[in-house]
């Protein structure tokens, strides 16, 4: 049977992809950010999962203003890196896992989550930057990836509670897949940042760290954080953190912390990173 063995949370700032692609990841500015991922890279090299279900948001790349799916799952064979306006990132194609993806999609719909199913889409920095942070610059990504795109741009975005519940439903779906697969769920985006308006540049170290605390152990308090609190406390783009709750929900009743990293700033954004494992 397939099983979820770990969850990873990580920011997905596009500038981090630029740093990797241009060989700057160990300079004075980026070095402290990337050093916080060293533990994870070594750990993943020793225990590479078969499949990563990667929760992210599209930044006006695959989806324009026309169609706005709240939850979309990529069921295709492969996904190309998107041209975000300056050419695609020089990273490998992302290879999907259609059997598991379709199984999850079907199971979620039966479980009252009305997913949008995507066969063809390009994947932007929201998905490829976390892969670069965890795996560096391989010739091919060492895992299959199921993209799960969440609308966190056009309001109302899904509630934190709904995201957590989706994670719980993903765990049930994975557990009923007959093949023996090691699956991780990654929640990406965040942490505090605001990219627009006169309040741009808002960061909130205290709130971000309290949020990370809430994902460790058996607390369910983060489910109830309303959108307005993310907006007031963490900036207009801090709402991306609801995607971390899908990862957390997928890990079950209780988690234990394997690794934690926090750094300010990367461009306009606070960087946060967690590695969690489910416990009985």
């Amino acid at each position, binding site marked *: 049977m397939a099983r979820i063995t770990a969850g990873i949370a990580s920011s997905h700032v*596009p*500038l981090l992809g630029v740093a990797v692609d241009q060989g700057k990841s160990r300079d004075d500015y980026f070095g402290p950010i990337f050093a916080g991922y060293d533990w994870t890279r070594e750990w993943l090299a020793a225990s590479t999962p078969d499949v990563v279900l990667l929760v992210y948001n599209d*930044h*006006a*790349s695959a989806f*324009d*203003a*026309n169609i706005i799916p709240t939850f979309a799952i990529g069921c295709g064979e492969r996904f190309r890196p998107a*041209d*975000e*306006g*300056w*050419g695609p990132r020089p990273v490998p194609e992302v290879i999907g896992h259609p059997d598991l993806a379709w199984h999850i999609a079907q199971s979620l719909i039966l479980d009252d989550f009305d997913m949008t199913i995507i066969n063809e889409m390009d994947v932007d920095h929201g998905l490829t930057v976390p892969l670069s942070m965890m795996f560096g610059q391989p010739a091919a990504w060492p895992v299959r990836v199921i993209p799960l795109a969440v609308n966190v*741009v*056009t*309001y*109302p975005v899904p*509630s934190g*509670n709904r995201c957590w519940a989706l994670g719980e439903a993903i765990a049930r779906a994975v557990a009923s897949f007959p093949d023996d697969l090691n699956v991780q769920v990654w929640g990406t985006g965040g942490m*505090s940042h*605001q*990219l*627009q*308006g*006169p*309040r*741009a*540049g*808002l*960061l*909130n*170290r205290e*709130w971000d760290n309290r949020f990370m605390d809430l994902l460790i152990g058996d607390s369910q308090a983060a489910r*109830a954080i*309303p*959108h*307005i609190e993310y*907006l*007031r*406390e963490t*900036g*207009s783009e801090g709402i991306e953190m609801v995607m971390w709750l899908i990862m957390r929900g997928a890990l079950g009743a209780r988690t234990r912390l394997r690794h934690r990293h926090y750094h*300010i*700033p990367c*461009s*306009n954004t*606070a960087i946060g990173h967690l590695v969690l494992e489910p416990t009985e």
Partner: protein
Amino acid sequence: MTHDIHAYLAEFDDIPGTRVYTAKRARAGYQLNQFCMSLMKAENRERWKAGEDDYLAGWALSDDQKAAVKARDYNRLLDLGGNIYFLAKIFSTDGISFAEAVSTMTDMDFPTYRQMMMNGGRPPQGNRSIKGGW
């Protein structure tokens, strides 16, 4: 959590210096954002750079929206329904970084904004609520 959409949306207007991208803004900005999206294609970027007026003539934008695009007035574009991830296609085509473009929406020049970020960013204190001042 409120399930009253009116109360839910009303709270967004109490956040200082922030335009939350609501359905109302998404409607007003639909053509503007789709114009921005067109700059994802290299051939369209070339046409845009060759003549902004000619390129804009092909899009059903309001005169205000066209003027704000030409002026790269991003706060105004937010007011007119633009979303930052779509507007990013304009400043990416201009060759301007995200952080520099973002700084133009604040009351700081780019070096000052960048230094604020290095110093820990804009603090939440006093920036959470217009009415409450907290």
